């Protein structure tokens, strides 16, 4: 039974990869951009869920790292004249350092205090970015973020994003199933017991934060390249709801859940914004609906169904 399930999963993954690889041959630039958005947000959701679904932490300000990654890339590119790919490599590292700093204080706290501290760090960063016009363009943001030459073409960007996201999801997947990942889940479930069996709970949480910050930063940097611009709104307080929505929508208790949640979220938002200017209203209704009807997300709901 397990073999059949694994084989089915492998087939599904293969099919999805094939679709992803072949899609650019048939779709235009708009949908290429949507595709990049799906990949980027999938990485964003998966890295966030390391903290939330597997680590049991709920930061209210995680979008700070998405925005920091985006701005780090944009500033290195436009203000320091770095080559785009170098900036793309540096941005996640900068975010990892930032996450290390923030996490040092956050992991000592739990629940709402952790959430609020993350929120206040995000607002600090947001305010600095908003006010520092010379460096960040303030409210206008920065534009002209692109890779010169062939690599800047939509199709090239699409494959770059696909490659980087797949290359990033793989270690995240391994991490979640590794001894570290198991210990993290133990810490989430029962921190007291975790201490009793020798787990350094703070250290585990801190590492999870740094890893999540790294990959979220990469997602942000990629998105900046795809969008060719960055805006402070990307790390506004309400932006931090997005990864939570995606994780819960798809199902936070599995690795694949947030990926599915991200895809649905991006596609839904694309469709909604194309059809109505009141897309936020529908999104709000959907969110409340999911929480009320399908709290374990789509994957959780499907798994439940199969067991009954």
């Amino acid at each position, binding site marked *: 039974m397990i073999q059949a399930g694994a084989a089915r999963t492998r087939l599904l993954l293969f099919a999805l990869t094939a679709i992803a690889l072949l899609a650019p041959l048939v779709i235009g630039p708009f949908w290429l951009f949507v595709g990049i958005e799906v990949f980027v947000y999938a990485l964003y959701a998966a890295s966030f869920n390391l903290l939330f679904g597997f680590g049991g932490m709920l930061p209210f300000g995680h979008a700070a790292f998405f925005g920091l990654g985006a701005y780090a890339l944009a500033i290195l590119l436009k203000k320091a004249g770095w080559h785009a790919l170098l900036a793309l490599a540096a941005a996640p590292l900068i975010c990892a350092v930032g996450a290390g700093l923030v996490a040092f204080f956050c992991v000592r706290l739990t629940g709402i205090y952790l959430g609020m501290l993350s929120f206040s760090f995000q607002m600090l960063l947001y305010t600095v970015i908003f006010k520092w016009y010379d460096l960040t363009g303030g409210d206008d943001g920065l534009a002209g973020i692109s890779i010169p030459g062939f690599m800047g073409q939509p199709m090239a960007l699409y494959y770059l994003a696909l490659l980087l996201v797949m290359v990033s999801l793989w270690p995240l997947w391994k991490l979640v199933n590794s*001894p570290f990942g*198991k210990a993290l889940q133990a810490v989430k479930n029962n921190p007291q017991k975790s201490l*009793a069996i*020798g787990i350094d709970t703070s250290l585990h949480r801190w590492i999870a934060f740094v890893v999540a910050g790294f990959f979220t930063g990469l997602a942000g940097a990629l998105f900046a390249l795809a969008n060719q611009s960055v805006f402070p709104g990307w790390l506004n307080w309400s932006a931090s709801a997005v990864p939570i929505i995606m994780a819960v929508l798809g199902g936070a208790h599995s690795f694949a859940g947030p990926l599915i949640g991200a895809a649905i979220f991006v596609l839904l938002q694309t469709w909604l914004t194309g059809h109505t200017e009141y897309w936020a209203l529908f999104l709000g209704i959907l969110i409340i609906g999911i929480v009320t009807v399908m709290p374990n997300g789509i994957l959780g709901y499907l798994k439940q169904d199969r067991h009954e």
Partner: protein
Amino acid sequence: MSESIFSTDALHKRFGGLHATNDVSLNIARSEFRAIIGPNGAGKSTLFNLVTGFLRPDSGRILFEGIDITGKSPNRLFAGGLSRTFQITSIFTNLSVLENVQVALLSHHRKLFHFLQRADAQFLEPAHALLAQVGLGGSAVRTASMLSHGDRKKLELAVALANRPKLLFLDEPTAGMASNERIEAIRMVRRIAGERDLTVVFTEHDMQVVFEVADRISVLHQGRIIADGPPDEIRGSKDVQRVYLGETI
């Protein structure tokens, strides 16, 4: 007389006006099976939390195998061969029975920071062996949240043995069990302790259980040790009887 494996020296702990642990000096000998008894509110759990690193004493020292462990965090004590269970059975309800033991083994073997190996494949044999020893061999793949109360206690014991401890603190190991189950359970612990040359300190309310297996008994009352000796001595102690009959000072 066996050497001392664990001792406390004048431990004190206050919570506001409550002197929960009052000048407690204990001496546990190697391979001893020690019971700590006392009426409700005597401070047994506080004492346990102090000696296992979950609380910091206000003053006093704690020595484990000659090393001062006062103030050391629980995770470091586990690495040093000290294990404990909790009064309210504490397991990882989101993991399977086998994974509960596996994660403790991973911790003991310092493999918690391996990022790329598959956790499920690690230490399968030792994990199964531990489960078999406590009688949970058939439940390995069940989610721990599905276990009955008695099985949870067994799982907790298996997990506590994962680090090949030299010293095991069991907080009310038979709580919630029917009286016939209790004797069985404590006998199993005694047997395992004998096989592994393990020193055990446990708290207990049921005197039948205590007198069944304890080598030595310490009696706690209002934070103080009021009696400390072999079972016969405690049985005959007027002080202990008075405390249990409810006479307050």
